[in-house]
């Protein structure tokens, strides 16, 4: 609100404050319908999750009596069953084993190549950058078929590597684009000062630029994590051993086999959903900036 008052000072102080005050008087009454409509849409957005979590705590017979009621007893045993009997412990482990190296390696490689594209001049830099951008534009469907056959040929099919390496490749494509945008905006003075202090390019990146780049890097890492965590198609095509399945793949198969035990499926879905939700809530600002900012510059 402070900003509005500042820019509104043109018509003259008395008039301005007068109209502001009028506006403020009707503030609450006027916004009530807005809140109600927003509330309706908010409920639409989160209702399926609320009902999923409720269901995860119920028994099948309780569920048959009503889908909308609170659970009579909060039965954690559904989660225990999903975790141990339905092997969600294995799927969770697979997802973590895949996501951690993807996020860390992609981040390191993206920062390095983004730095080179953003701050250095070298032959073919534009052509190389455009080739990297292909990875953002082209859908996964356009590479999954040869990927399957190539990985089979080098013996990596049905291993964690089959998920980790392509995921890094796709992440580096976006990450280079993202970090280059950041490094190109860094004031030249900062880099010059580092050079005067005797820093070579590596020291400049590591000691001078990296601290200022942390917000951009965090946004990027959150996106890498959520994309890897939620991936389905790669795992569906490249993984066939049950114990190597990641959470989304495990959930999809589990649903196919246990259509009748809805509470158990709901518990499994909740286990898949929680880490992404936690990551999103913890880094909400960075996440939204990454999604919206990244796409606006593109």
């Amino acid at each position, binding site marked *: *609100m402070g900003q509005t008052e500042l820019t509104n000072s043109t018509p003259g102080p008395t008039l301005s404050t007068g109209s502001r005050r009028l506006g403020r008087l009707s503030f609450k009454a006027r916004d009530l319908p807005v809140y109600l409509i927003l509330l309706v849409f908010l409920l639409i957005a989160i209702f399926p999750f609320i009902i999923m979590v409720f269901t995860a705590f119920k028994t099948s017979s309780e569920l048959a009596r009503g889908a909308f009621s609170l659970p009579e007893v909060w039965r954690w045993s559904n989660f225990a069953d999903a975790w141990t009997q339905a092997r969600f412990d294995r799927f969770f482990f697979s997802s973590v084993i895949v996501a951690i190296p993807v996020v860390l390696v992609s981040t390191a490689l993206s920062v390095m190549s983004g730095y080179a*594209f953003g701050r*250095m*001049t070298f032959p073919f830099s534009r052509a190389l950058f455009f080739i990297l951008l292909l990875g953002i534009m*082209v*859908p996964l*469907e356009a590479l999954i078929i*040869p990927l399957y056959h190539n990985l089979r040929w080098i013996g990596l099919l049905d291993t964690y590597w089959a998920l980790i390496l392509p995921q890094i490749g796709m992440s580096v494509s976006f990450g280079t684009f993202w970090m280059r945008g950041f490094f190109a905006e860094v004031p030249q003075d900062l880099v010059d000062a580092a050079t005067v202090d005797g820093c070579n390019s590596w020291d400049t990146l590591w000691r001078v630029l990296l601290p200022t780049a942390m917000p951009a890097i965090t946004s990027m890492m959150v996106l890498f994590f959520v994309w890897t965590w939620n991936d389905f198609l790669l795992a569906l095509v490249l993984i066939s051993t049950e114990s190597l399945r990641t959470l989304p793949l495990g959930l*999809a198969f589990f649903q196919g086999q246990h259509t009748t035990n809805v509470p158990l499926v709901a518990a499994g879905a909740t286990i898949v959903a929680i880490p992404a939700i936690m990551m999103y809530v913890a880094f909400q600002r960075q996440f939204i900036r990454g999604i919206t900012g990244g796409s606006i510059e593109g």
Partner: protein
Amino acid sequence: MLNTPKARSRGYKPGERPWTACLYILPGFIIYAVFVLWPILDTLRYSFYEWSGFSSPSFIGLDNYIKLYSDEIFRKALVNNLWFIVFYTVFPIVIGLFLTALMTRRRLPGMTLFRTGLFMPYVMAMVVVGVVWRWIYNPATGPLNQALRAVGLDALARPWLGDFDLALPAVGVVGTWVQFGFCMVLFIAGVQRIDEMLYDAAKLDGANEWRQFWHITLPGLRNEISVAMVTTLIAALRIFDLVFVTTRGGPGNETMVVALHIYRNAFAINRVGYAAAIAVVLTIVIVIISVGVLALRQKWVED
């Protein structure tokens, strides 16, 4: 997009050589080249062959592409993808603009909470979304039919995902549900960047809120709208996870989509070359649409 004069005008720093840049780029680029770029080129190559994936491939030129013309399932899938654009792109953008117009430039208390909640569906794995909605639509025990029966609308209760006419809209609604929060968050961020002076000037001229929205907010959001269009169009053309989990393309081929057709051909019935040809077509459509919308945006910005 690609042009940064700032980066290009800079000369070598003392002690730096062109290959320094190579050392920074190489590790990432190698992984990208082997696991992304090479397969993309291979897809193009595969599309000229008839190959089951195991036997030796035979070169057949453009035959796969010619076959696409008479492939009824492909045509059905393509039309379905176009229908999904209505649910993935048109509805979310309209809803997003409506919500944005409602709260234009008013920093309401509690806005962060609304934003968090509205954006939530977009963060979820599509598999989770599909599993939850498939149950919501369950004919016997699903919450939707339960609710309809509870309010006496038994006649409306039906097997949503098994109904030939309703399966596609039912899946489409899920797409709208996923995308509208994303569009809204994008638009609200955009509105806050519009110069407040424009609105003050309009108010002095006696423009009502509708005219302010039409003449200031909407043109001011063209950047965000084009981004929302590109993102949601691509999502609609690529739709796979959601359909795979909810209907697998059924009933019949009522919800068959191009990506699922590719998957079936490549990994279920082993027509690898043919699947690659479909993938090439899908990719070309996606690239044309992305470039088209971005060119449109360029034109808007220049106007």
